[in-house]
């Protein structure tokens, strides 16, 4: 009797969470797979049927403006630029904060603020700051630098740069905090030994800091890449849904537009599946490659 109870206990604990997961994750996932093989749209909302891989074909080959490949390319630029800046700024600030300086905790608190504010507020605030006439960015450019104002939100390239600036601003504190945690766990003795050997600052950074920081940063970077790749809030709210003329989408916002702007449900579901596989393949290879570093933990 007792023995049976003991075996049942974990199932009892898991059951509520499992039921919720089946209802809100697994079932919708299967439904999404079915949708991606169907012709469902607002017009065929009730009389939809399975039509095979047509929607996937459309994702890759249907001529559309912007095309899947353009958006995919932009997503990669978006992810790489953002994460690179996040890591470089984050690690640099963490190294500065790791010195013996006064007011450390004040700086730390101020620098963490962009991460603490709700993302949608950050996005909407920066949208205001990028306003052509009254936004403070253009005011500063014209007042202090004496340069002509920039049409931030009205032309595709500038709008894309504006979103990237916003996202860099809100993303560096995460990397900074992670890197600071990593730096604090590096023993001073390494640096002292290096000093005795007469190592330069660059040599110390290259041969002590980087290798010892790597195991901490790699999982954070993996997470950062997935989050950035998937971040619809910032791009959607800063560009007000892909303005101008759907030229500023990344893949996730492009799906959102196909589903809730154009009501092409089957197509949006197929596109989602494609993005999912891209992320899955990336994560699996990245995690496998960092397996070696993980054993260092």
């Amino acid at each position, binding site marked *: 009797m007792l023995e049976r109870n*003991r075996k049942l*206990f*974990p199932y009892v*604990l*898991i059951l*509520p969470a*499992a039921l*919720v*997961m089946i209802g*809100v*994750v*697994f079932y*919708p*996932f299967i*439904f*999404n797979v079915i*949708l991606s093989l169907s012709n*469902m749209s607002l017009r065929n909302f009730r009389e939809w049927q399975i039509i095979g891989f047509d929607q996937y074909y459309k994702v890759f080959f249907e001529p559309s403006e912007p095309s899947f490949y353009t958006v995919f390319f932009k997503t990669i630029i978006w992810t790489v630029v953002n994460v690179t800046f996040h890591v470089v700024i984050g690690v*640099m*600030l963490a190294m*500065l904060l790791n*010195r013996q*300086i006064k007011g450390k905790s004040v700086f730390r608190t*101020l*620098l*963490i603020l962009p991460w*603490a504010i*709700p993302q*949608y*507020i*950050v996005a*909407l*605030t*920066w*949208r*205001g*700051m990028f306003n052509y*006439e*009254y936004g*403070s960015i253009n*005011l500063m450019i014209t007042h202090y630098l004496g340069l002509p104002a920039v049409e931030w939100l009205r032309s595709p390239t500038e709008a894309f740069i504006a979103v990237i600036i916003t996202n860099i*601003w809100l993303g560096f504190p995460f990397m900074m905090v992670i890197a600071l*945690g990593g730096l604090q766990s590096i023993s001073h003795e390494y640096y002292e030994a290096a000093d005795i050997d007469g190592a330069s600052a660059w040599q110390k950074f290259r041969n002590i800091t980087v290798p010892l920081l790597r195991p*901490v940063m790699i*999982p*954070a970077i993996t997470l950062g890449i997935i989050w950035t790749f*998937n*971040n*619809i*809030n910032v791009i959607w*709210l800063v560009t007000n849904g892909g303005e101008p003329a759907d030229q500023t989408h990344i893949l996730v916002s492009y*799906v*959102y537009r196909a*589903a809730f702007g154009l009501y092409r*449900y089957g197509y*949006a*579901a197929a596109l*989602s*599946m494609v993005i*999912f596989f891209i992320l899955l393949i990336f994560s699996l290879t990245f995690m496998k490659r960092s397996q070696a570093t993980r054993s260092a933990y």
Partner: protein
Amino acid sequence: MRNSAKFKKRLADTIAYLILIIFAVIAVYPILQVLSISLRPADRLLSTSLAIIPDDATLAAYQELFTGRPFLLWMRNSILVSFVVTSTGVALAAMAGYAFSRFKFRGKNFGLLSLLVTQMFPATMLLLPMYIMLVKLGLINTFLGVIIIYSSTALPFCIWTMKGYYDTISPSLEEAARIDGCTQFASFYKVVLPLAAPALVIVALFSFMTSWAEYVVAAQVLQDTGLWTLPVGLQTFQANMSTEWGLYAAASLIVSIPVVILFLALSKFLVSGLTLGSVKG
């Protein structure tokens, strides 16, 4: 020789301060900007002045927000939704995480792996099928609808975090409690759960933030003004930049301050939870 080393250190310190100050200003500036706009009188919203505290500062926007707009209603809606998502999320994750951490059972690895895979779902992938399900179930325009969707975003991460934390608590404590005659559930509830308080706090903060600051889902599911949560309401203020920018600014400060304080107080735990979850993943 010693002097030059000292000078070098001084120079390095000065540069360090300079960079830190520049970045601190960049980090704080947009927030001051919002403060500034919230204090402007309504006829001077579109000002080209760069002063932080405007000359004729007024609290009119705050007053209008509380008395003339459904701001308090949206806040109540947001609190209600966040509260339900947080409490169910924490309860379910605390139990499921414990099972994953302590027991061997059929389907355990499959369960853990599928939780991890959900983190690679594109943000919009579950939204579309769930939206269609909600339409068919008649749950569009209800709080239950958004609550269901939010629980799917937060739960997997919460279960992983709880499991990671339980793994660091020694099982010998429960064994001792069991020898003293505690039931399995009592040893979990009375011995392990209190020790896992830091993880519970992280999980609660995370679930709360996912629902408190979510725009994309709420904008599709909640259509009546009276049902809006704060993000949807604030977005409409921002959209009417010429007339309601001050309201937007005032509202976003009020919405952010409690979250920011909470976040700063808990940021240390949050980071350890994040790295723990991902490293063990």
